[in-house]
């Protein structure tokens, strides 16, 4: 297994961020260097406003996660960051288009980057796309 894992999340579907956060958590606590790139419609799920209002776009499993009061994707990312090497980057192009600042994003986001920067970060990494 590669020691680096890169996950690209482009979909606004809640479940995709959730499974990404599960995989990222276990990889990070197993000693892998994990980088997440949040882009396109997925960016909406990382806005403070969306998280505060729990205004996610999700399906049947999202409804169950809420009902069972299971940890949400941003909580899983948060504990993974405490326990391992995990960084979350948001696409700067989408931020430009939506006219959002880093302050509009939830605190687990480390930075905003462009494609060239993320390509550098994910060099040599195993990559998963959601």
């Amino acid at each position: 297994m590669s020691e680096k894992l890169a996950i690209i999340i482009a979909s606004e579907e809640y479940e995709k961020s959730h499974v990404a956060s599960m995989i990222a958590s276990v990889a990070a606590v197993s000693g892998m260097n994990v980088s997440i790139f949040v882009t396109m419609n997925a960016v909406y799920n990382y806005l403070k406003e969306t998280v505060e209002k729990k205004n996610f776009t999700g399906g049947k499993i999202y409804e169950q996660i809420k009902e069972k009061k299971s940890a949400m994707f941003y909580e899983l990312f948060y504990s993974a960051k405490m326990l391992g090497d995990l960084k979350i980057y948001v696409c700067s192009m989408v931020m430009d288009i939506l006219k959002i600042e880093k302050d509009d994003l939830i605190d687990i986001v480390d930075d905003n980057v462009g494609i060239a920067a993320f390509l550098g970060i994910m060099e040599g990494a195993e990559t998963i796309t959601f």
Partner: protein
Amino acid sequence: MTEEELRQIKPTVTVDARGTYCPGPLMELIKEMRQQPVGSTIELISGDAGSAKDVPEWLGKVKQEFLGVIPEDNFWRIFSKKIKDM
């Protein structure tokens, strides 16, 4: 270890992670293992069926010791030992 031997273990600490979903129990174990000194035995109680397979896999990867699992009615008791710093 046999189930008999596992039942004799007096763990340094027991982490009850019932009520959390995958990967919750594993994350709870890791948090505890970080805090405990080398030589500690940790019992993880999990209601998540995946944990009995997930935990030994993770312990193997980070080179900590897996002692065994006791399956109970609705949960699993998973024993591990911290054998090196992490």
